[in-house]
């Protein structure tokens, strides 16, 4: 038997493997019927020790579309974890029932503990503020589908870049491609952490920091929006002064490229004005579709299942 593969961090996958997942996701979209029953009699457990309806439904829809079935829980309250059962014991038990597990947990590193306790593949569906690799895969597939490539482009990342794990992962993933320039758009107090800057420097990537969307807009190929939360600011004054700078509306888009791709990991609150939704450059709902396709591809990859020739 070959080695059990898990997906804890996006860097667990090589660039070639990510390319392979993207190719499978595209094939799923093109030849849907070939995948309808490919996971018949296979079971996915979605173990959500912390609620995230969107992510959980995306995994469940992915497995159902492959002809498999799903079981699990959607919050710690509705699981044995509420009675104090450890991650180890939960995973060890559930690993006896299913073929693959997607787990989300508020504590960082929880899926690593899970992976030590079972021989079925573990997918990290988010561990606190640490990693969320299937979001990153979703983002990569979205960019590939919209741009036809993953290299040579200018990527703007806007909002809370200090605590935004989706931003950190996306940077880390895109650093592996040629000719990526990052424009980091945030208030100073929410700038990208030092270690991310070190990684960008080590990879020889071009990057700069700016404080407003307007400054960055004209050169961007991708604009990745995230939410700026009021609690993250040190004082009310700064929040009021800066909050509108990180809200995207049609006015700010005036100087943007015709083929800009606007992304957001969702859920959105008010950081993208609803008037932008109908702009052809808005791709955040398209991202949700990509999220399902890439999770289908990932499940197949980790289960070692290939489409019949």
């Amino acid at each position, binding site marked *: 038997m070959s080695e059990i593969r898990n997906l804890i961090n996006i860097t667990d996958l090589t660039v070639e493997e990510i390319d392979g997942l993207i190719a499978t996701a595209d094939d799923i979209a093109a030849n849907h019927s070939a995948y309808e029953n490919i996971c018949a009699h296979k079971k996915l457990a979605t173990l959500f020790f912390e609620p995230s309806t969107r992510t959980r439904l995306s995994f469940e829809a992915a497995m159902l579309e492959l002809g498999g079935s799903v079981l699990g829980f959607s919050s710690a309250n509705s699981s044995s974890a509420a009675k104090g059962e*450890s991650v*180890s014991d939960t995973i060890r038990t559930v690993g006896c029932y299913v073929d693959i597990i997607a787990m989300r947990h508020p504590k960082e590193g929880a899926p690593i503990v899970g992976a030590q306790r079972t021989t079925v593949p573990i997918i990290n569906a988010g561990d606190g503020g*640490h990693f969320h690799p299937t979001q990153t895969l979703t983002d990569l597939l979205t960019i590939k589908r919209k741009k036809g490539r993953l290299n040579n482009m200018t990527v703007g990342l806007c909002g809370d870049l200090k605590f935004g794990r989706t931003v950190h992962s996306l940077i880390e993933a895109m650093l592996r491609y040629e000719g990526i320039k990052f424009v980091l758009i945030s208030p100073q107090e929410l700038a990208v952490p030092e270690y991310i800057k070190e990684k960008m420097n080590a990879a020889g990537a071009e990057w700069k920091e700016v404080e407003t969307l307007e400054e960055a807009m004209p050169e961007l190929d991708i604009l990745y929006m995230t939410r700026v939360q009021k609690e993250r600011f040190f004082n009310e004054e700064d929040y009021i002064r800066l909050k509108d700078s990180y809200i995207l509306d049609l006015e700010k888009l005036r100087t943007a490229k015709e083929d800009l791709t606007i992304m957001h990991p969702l859920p959105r609150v008010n950081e993208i004005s609803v008037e932008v939704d109908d702009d052809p450059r808005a791709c955040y709902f398209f991202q949700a579709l990509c999220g399902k396709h890439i999770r289908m591809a990932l499940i197949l990859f980790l289960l070692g299942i290939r489409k019949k020739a």
Partner: protein
Amino acid sequence: MNIDGVNTGIVLDHIKAGKSMQIYELLGLDKINNCVAIIQNADSEKYGKKDIIKIDQIIDLDFDVLGYVDSNITVNIVKDGRLERKHHMELPQTLKNVVKCKNPRCITSVEQGIVHTFRLVDRENKVYRCAYCDAEHRVK
């Protein structure tokens, strides 16, 4: 070389003065049946003062722990009154159950029965990272 009193056994030399009890515990010497001597504040040419631990038998020791606590320690294996081997310590690649992660958001802060693991990421600056949450740990 002061190996008085040990005919066959191990002498942990050049321990930083005051660190011997920590090493005694980390190596689990409190759990063995051998005769163990701890010498504190011995005179040292190199460091002024040092601690020494002597064990009267050659037993398996976790060199990784020693390297982590104090990479200046030398381990002398003595056989029949003669110095047979001398090991110099260095920072180990991985630390298992030597330090605990201080990140309150780390799974190791709540889960029981976990092997607390750190990996060396920067030998020059003595930086480790938690294998679970990637929190940094700098060796002082």
